[in-house]
C-alpha cells in the first residue's frame, strides 16, 4: 500500500487484489443473498422507527402549526433551516466525487462514488422536505413556483429563496440522472445474474436494455462525461446559492461576501465526513473491505483535512473582516458568537470542525477505521452546529437590543432532526440491499485485471458475466 509521501494523485486506483469475477461476486452477492445480514435488519428497524418519528413530527407540525417547533421571534429560522442547509451540504461530497474527481481522473473514486452519489440524492431528499414544511402555510409552497395561474401571481425573483428553488431542484435532477445513468451497466449485471423472474424483470426494466455493446459503451461514456461536466459547476453553485439566503440579507453575521466559498468548502468537508461515516460500516457488514480499502478512507481523510482547514480559515477570516470593516454591529455579532449566550454552540463547532480533524495529520489516525468513523461523526456534528451558529446567533442578537431573544428548541424540533436521519438511513439501507452499492464496471476498469485505461472498461462487464457462467 502506498504511503502518504509517495502518493501520486494521478495514479490509478488503490490496488486491491481483485479479479473481475471477485468484484462482481462481492457486489452482487449482497443483492443475491436470500437474507441480508442481521445487522442490516437491526439497522433497518432503527431507521424505520426514526422515519416514523419523522413523519409523526411533521404531521404534528402541519396539523398544529409550525409553532410546535421552538422557532420564534427573532429567531424566525431555526432547526428546520439548519437541517436544510446541513443536508444540502452533505450531498456535495457525492457530486464532488462523482463529477469533479472524475474529470480530474481521480480513479480511486470508483470504489466509493456510487454510494456517495446515493448519499447525495438521499441527502437532497432530506433537505428538500424542510423548505416545504418549514413555511407557515405548508399547503401553499407552490406559490414559489413560476406556475401561470388565475390569481396572476408570480414569484418575486429578487428573493434568494426563489434562487434556492431553482438551484436545489436543478441539483436534484442532475444528481438523480447522473446516479441512475451510472448504474445502468450494473443493473444489467444484476439482471443477468438474477435467479427469480421478478428480479430479472425489475432489474431488466431499469437496465433499459443494456447489452454492453461497444456502441452502448461509447454513448454511455460520452453521456457520463457530459453529465459530469454539467454536475461540476453545480457542486459550486448550489451551496453558493444557499449561502446567498444569508449573504444577501443585511443581518450582521449573514451579510458576508466570504459565504459562497466558505459554504462550498464546508459542504465538501461535511459531505466527506458523511461518506466516511457510511463507508466504514458498509464495508464491514457487506464484505467490501477489498473494494473500499483503508487507502480509500485515508484519501478521504486527507480531503477532510484540506477542506477542514479551509473552513477554519473562513471562521478566522469572518472575525478579521468583522474587525477590519469597523462596523460595530458586525464586530459585536462575532464577539457574541464566541463569547455570548451561544458560546457553547460556537465552541462545539470549532472543536469538531477545526481542532479534532487535525488528528488526521497522523497517519496512524488516518488509517484507523475506528478513528476515522468517530472523527467523521464528530465533523457531522460540527457542521450541523456551524449552520446553527450562523443562523441562531445572528438572528437572536441583531441591530436593536430590545428585540433580542433566545431560541429554545422543543421536543418536536429534536424529533424532526432525528427523524430526518431516519429518512436518510432507511433510503440508504434499501439502496445497499437492492442496488449496486459499488460501481462494478468502473472499479473493474481500474483494477489490476482491467488495466488502467478507460477504453477497456466494457470488458469488465463482459468478462465478469462470462466468468460467472
Amino acid at each position, binding site marked *: 500500500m502506498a504511503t502518504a509521501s509517495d502518493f501520486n494523485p494521478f495514479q490509478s486506483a488503490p490496488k486491491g487484489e481483485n479479479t473481475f469475477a471477485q468484484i462482481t461476486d462481492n457486489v452482487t452477492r449482497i443483492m443475491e443473498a436470500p437474507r441480508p445480514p442481521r445487522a442490516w435488519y437491526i439497522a433497518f428497524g432503527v431507521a424505520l422507527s426514526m422515519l416514523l418519528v419523522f413523519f409523526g413530527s411533521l404531521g404534528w407540525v402541519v396539523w398544529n*402549526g409550525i409553532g410546535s417547533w421552538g422557532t420564534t421571534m427573532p429567531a424566525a429560522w431555526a432547526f428546520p433551516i439548519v437541517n436544510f442547509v446541513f443536508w444540502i451540504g452533505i450531498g456535495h461530497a457525492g457530486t464532488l466525487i462523482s463529477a469533479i474527481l472524475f474529470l480530474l481522473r481521480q480513479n480511486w473514486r470508483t470504489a466509493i462514488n456510487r454510494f456517495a452519489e446515493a448519499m447525495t440524492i438521499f441527502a437532497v431528499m432530506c433537505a428538500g422536505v424542510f423548505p416545504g414544511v418549514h413555511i407557515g402555510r405548508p399547503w401553499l409552497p407552490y406559490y414559489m413556483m413560476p406556475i401561470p395561474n388565475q390569481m396572476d401571481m408570480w414569484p418575486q425573483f429578487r*428573493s434568494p*429563496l426563489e434562487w434556492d428553488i431553482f438551484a436545489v431542484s436543478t441539483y436534484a435532477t442532475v444528481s438523480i440522472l447522473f446516479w441512475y445513468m451510472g448504474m445502468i451497466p450494473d443493473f444489467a449485471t444484476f439482471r443477468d445474474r438474477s435467479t427469480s423472474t421478478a428480479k430479472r424483470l425489475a432489474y431488466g426494466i431499469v437496465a433499459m436494455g443494456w447489452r454492453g455493446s461497444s456502441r452502448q459503451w461509447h454513448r454511455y461514456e460520452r453521456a457520463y462525461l457530459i453529465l459530469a461536466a454539467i454536475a461540476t459547476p453545480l457542486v459550486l453553485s448550489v451551496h453558493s446559492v444557499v449561502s446567498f439566503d444569508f449573504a444577501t*440579507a*443585511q443581518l450582521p453575521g449573514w451579510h458576508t461576501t466570504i459565504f459562497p466559498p466558505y459554504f462550498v468548502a464546508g459542504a465538501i468537508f461535511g459531505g466527506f465526513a458523511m461518506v466516511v461515516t457510511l463507508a466504514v460500516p458498509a464495508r464491514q457488514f457487506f464484505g467490501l473491505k477489498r473494494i473500499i480499502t483503508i487507502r480509500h478512507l485515508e484519501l478521504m481523510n486527507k480531503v477532510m483535512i484540506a477542506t477542514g482547514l479551509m473552513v477554519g480559515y473562513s471562521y478566522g477570516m469572518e472575525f478579521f473582516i468583522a474587525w477590519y470593516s469597523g462596523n460595530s454591529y458586525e464586530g459585536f455579532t462575532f*464577539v457574541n458568537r464566541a463569547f455570548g449566550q451561544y458560546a457553547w454552540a460556537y465552541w462545539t463547532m470549532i472543536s469538531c470542525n477545526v481542532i479534532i480533524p487535525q488528528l488526521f495529520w497522523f497517519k496512524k489516525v488516518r488509517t484507523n477505521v475506528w478513528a476515522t468513523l468517530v472523527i467523521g461523526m464528530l465533523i457531522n456534528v460540527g457542521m450541523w452546529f456551524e449552520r446553527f451558529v450562523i443562523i441562531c446567533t445572528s438572528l437572536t442578537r441583531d441591530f436593536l437590543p430590545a*428585540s433580542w431573544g433566545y431560541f429554545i428548541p422543543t421536543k418536536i424540533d429534536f424529533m424532526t432532526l432525528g427523524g430526518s436521519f431516519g429518512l436518510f438511513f432507511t433510503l440508504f439501507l434499501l439502496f445497499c440491499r437492492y442496488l449496486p452499492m459499488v460501481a462494478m464496471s468502473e472499479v473493474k476498469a481500474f483494477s489490476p485485471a482491467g488495466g488502467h485505461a478507460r477504453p477497456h472498461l466494457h470488458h469488465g462487464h463482459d468478462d465478469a458475466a462470462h466468468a460467472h457462467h
Partner: protein
Amino acid sequence: MNKKLRVVSERSETPRTTDTISAKPTYWRSLAELDQTPAFLDAVEREFAEPLEQIPPDSPGRRRFMQVMGASFSMAGLAGCRWHEDKILPMTRRPEGVIPGTTSRYATAMELNGVAHGIHATSYDGRPIKVDGNPLHPDSLGAASTYHQGSVLGVYDPDRSDTVSSKGGAGREVSTFETFDKAAKEQFKKLRASRGEGLRILSERTSSPTLLALKDRWLTAFPLSKWVTFESLGSNGRAAGTALAFGQPHRVHYSFAEAKVIVSLDADFVAPSFPSGLANARGVTKGRTPDRAEMNRLYVIESAFSSTGAISDHRLALRAEQIKAVAAFLDAEISAKANALPEQGAGQPKPAGEFLNDAKVQKFLGAVAKDLLANIGKSIVVAGLHQPAEVHALVERINVLLGNTGRTVFYTADSADSVTSDVAELKALTDEMAAGRVTTLLVLGGNPAYDAPSDVDFAGALGKVTFSVRLGLYEDETSQDATWHVPAAHYLESWGDARAYDGTISIVQPLIAPIFGGRSALELLARLLGEEPKGLELVSAQHKGLLGDDRRFRKAVHDGIIEGTAFERVSPKLTPLAPFKLSERETSGTVGNGQLEVCFAACPKLYDGRYANNAWLQELPEPFSKLAWDNAAVFSVATAKALSVADGDVLTVTLGGKSVELPCIIVPGHADGSVRLALGYGRTHAGRVGGKLGTDVTPVGGNVTRLRTSAAPFFTAGLSITNHGPGKRLACMQDVYTMDVIGSEGIAERLPELIREAPIEKFREEPHFAKHMVHQPHELNLWVDPVSYEGHKWGMAIDLNKCTGCSACITACQAENNIPSVGQENVARGREMLWLRVDRYFRGDPNDPEVRFQPLPCQQCENAPCEQVCPVGATMHSHEGLNDMVYNRCIGTRYCSNNCPYKVRHFNYLNFNQEVIGATPYTPSDDPKMKLKAMVFNPEVTVRSRGVMEKCTFCVQRIQNAKIPAKNAHRAIEDGEIKTACQETCPTDAIIFGDLNDKKSRVASLQKLDRAYQLLGELNNRPRVHYLARITNPNKELA
C-alpha cells in the same frame, strides 16, 4: 340532519292542493307518480300537511318521516349535499340615520376610582369596537389609557356573568331576575318597616350625581342604613393632607404646561391611575418642547421607576417611607427663604437622619430647593396619592409659599373626598357583619372579598349576612358568598353620569343593550327603592334642573360633557402645621432582609385586579420590567445583590406572618431596600384568562393583597424574602433574564446611536447633533425605486422627548388591528404579536440609571429590506409608501422578518384565533360564547390565519376611511384628518402621522426639525418614521 331537511321543506312554500297532484301528470318521474298510487299521494300530502320539525326523530313517526323525505326529494328534484346555511336578514328598508358597514362615534365616559374619563366609543353596526379619548373632556383631551383601551374587550368577555345566581346548598345556583326581584321586594318591604335597620350598602367610589342623589333618597327612605365606600386603591392622603394644611379637604389641580420647575415626591402624576393623569401628561410634555420654547425641569424623587420618572431630568430613588423626611426638608428650606407670613406658621425643623446625611441626597435636595425658590409662581410640587397626609400637607404648604396657587396649582373644595380611609370604613363594616349586626348588604361593584386587606375578612363576614346582594360584572370572589349575585351592565351598556376630577359632568350613554341582561347600579338601586328603574330616565331627570330642555340634554350626551359644571376654584388659606415626628425608619439608611419596605401599587395593566380577565391587558408588557402575564417582586440592582436574588428566581415574600410566592424581577433605578408588588393578580374567580379555581386555568400571578393590612395599605416595612432559586421562564418581552457581559457592552455601545439625546445647552449650540451622530454615507440602490409617490407619501414622527412609556398605544393598536393575545407560554417564547412595541433601555449607572422609551412601529422603509426577500411578493410597496402585507399571498417563509433590522414583523406561529374563529375555515367555532368574542373585531381589518406574517400598516383602514369621503367630496385630505390608533390615544402627542407630500403638514415640519433622525438610517433602508431626539434640561449643579 334534521336541520338540513328543514331547509328543503321551507323551500316549497307554495301550497299545492291535492287536486293539482292527483291530476295525471304529463311529465312523470316515477311509475308511482304516473299511477298516482295512494301511497305516493299520501306521502306527498303528508310532506306538506304537517311541518317536519313536529315529528320527533325518535318517535314511531321516524320511518314515516324518512318516507316523506324521500318523496319530497324526488318531488323537488333535489339531490346531493348542501353547505351549511345561515340566514341573513337584509335591511331592505334602512332605518333612518343608519348606514350599514360604517362606523359612528358616541361620546360617553368611564369612571375609575371615582373619577370620570371622557371617551369616544366607536360603534360598528350597533356594537362598540374601540374606545378613544374625548377631546372635549378635561381629563382626556382626546387621550385614552391602557385601561380605557382594554375596557372594550370586557364587553364581549364570555366569562361575564350572564345570569342571576343564588347561594345554594352546594355552591351557586342559577336563578332569574324575576325570582330575585320577588325576594328583594319582600326583603325591602321589611326594611322599610324597620327604617333600614341592619341595611348596609357597600359601593365603589363614585362621582355620579345621579347615584349620589339616589344615595340621598335612599338614606331618607332607610335612615338607619349606612352607605360605605371602599376602593382598594382609593387613598385619602390628599384629602387628609389638604385638610391638615387648609382646614378642610381640597382637590388639587395643576397646570403643568405653565410650570418651569416641577418636583414630584413619589407621584406618578402622568399615570392613568392618578387623577387627571393623562391631562397632566399632556401638560408636562407640552412644556418640554425644546424646538421653540424654553423647557421645564422635572425632578422626580420616587421609590419605583414610573412614567414620570422616565421623562424626568433628575431622579432620585428613595424608599416611599423616606419621602416624608424629604418633604420636611424641602419645607424647612423653602419656609426659611420664601418669607412665610406669620399666620402660615413656621416651617418644619430641618430633619436629620442617616439617608439625609448622604452627600448625593443633600446635593440633590439642595438643588431642588434652590431651583424652586428661583422659580416663584412657576413651579409645582406634587405628592403621590399613597403618601400619608403629612406629606400632602407639606407639599401644599410649599406650593402656597412658592406662590404657585392660582398660577400653576389650583384648589377646589370638594366634600366628596373622604378624609377617613376607605379601608377603615370597610373594616368597620366587616366588623359589623361579623358581629351579625348586618342583615342586608348591597355590594355595588368592586370585589372586596378579593381585595380587602388580610386583616379584614370580608369574605368570611359576608357569609353571616342573611340577605346579601352582589351586583357585579363577573361572578367572582365576592359573589361566591353572597346570597344573590346580580349581573351588572358594562359601562358601555348602561346609562349613567360621572364627574371629571375637576367636577365636569359627563353623561354615560350605552352603545349596546346589555348583552347578558345586566343592570347598572343606578337601575338596581332605583328598583329597590321602588322608583322608575330605567337608566335614561333617572339620568335625564337628574340633570333636568341643570339642562332644562331636551335639546340641551341631547347636546350634553353628544358632547360627552356638560360645560360649566367644573367645581369652583378656591384659594384656601394655610393653617400652621405642627412639626411632624419622623420615625427612625423614615430617616434610616439601608435596610436588610426582614426590614425591607414593601409598596403595594396599582398594576398599570390590571389596575386593582378588575381587568384580570382581559387578555389584552394581561399581555401588555409592564413598561419597565417588560413582564406580561405575571406580577413580580421588584428589586433594585443593589438590593438584589445584597439578597442574592436574580431575575426569575422564585421567592417567598413574607410580611406579618403572611406569605406569597412571586418571581423576582430586577429593575435598575428602583429604590434600594424597597420591594414593589403589583396588585390585581392571583384572582381565583376571574375567568378563563385571569384564573379560575376548579378549572385548568391557574390564577395569573400571586395575590399580594394577602400581605396588605388595613393599617398600612400602600407601603409598610418588615418584609422578608426567601429565595427558592430559578423558576419558570418569565414572559418578558425584552431582555429575557439578566444580560450577559458581552450583551450589556454591546447595548451600551450602540445605545447612543439608537436613542439620540443631548442636554439642551448642547442642542442649542449644535442643533443638528442627532443627524451627525452616525455617518450616513451616500449609498446606491441595487433596485430602482418601485414608486414615485405622486399622490400621498405617508410618514410618521415620534418625539422621544414626549414618550412616557405608558403603553396605551400598544393596547390601542391591538384593539384597532385585531391583534391576538398569545398567552403566557408563547410570550415567554417570544411570539407576542403586538405590532407596536415600546422599547425600553436603561442608561448609565445601574444603581442610578435613566430610562429611555422608544415606540417602534413598522418603519415603512422606502427601500424596504423585507420587500426584497419575499419569494412570493406578499409584502409590497404601495404607491403611497406603505409596506403592504398581502396576507392571502403570504406562505410564511419568515425571510422578511429575518431581514428586518427593526424586527417589527410578527408571525402567526400557531392559530392564535382558533377558539374564536375555529381551526380551519371549514370547522368554524360553534361555541356561541366564543363567537361573542369575535364581536370585538374591527371588521375593517383582516383576522389573520395561522402561518402568515403581519405587521403595522400605519392603520391603512383609517387612511382609506379618510381618503374615500375626501375623494367623493373632491377635496384634499386635511392634515390631522387621519390619525393612527397609536397617535390618537397618545396622552402626550408623541406620535404624529401625516402626508409628507403636504409640505405644511405637521409630520413634514417635524421631520424637518433639527433633532429629527432616522433609526438605523445608515443601512440605507430610508425609514419613513423619524424620531425626534430627546433633549434633557439638567440642572448644572447636579451635572
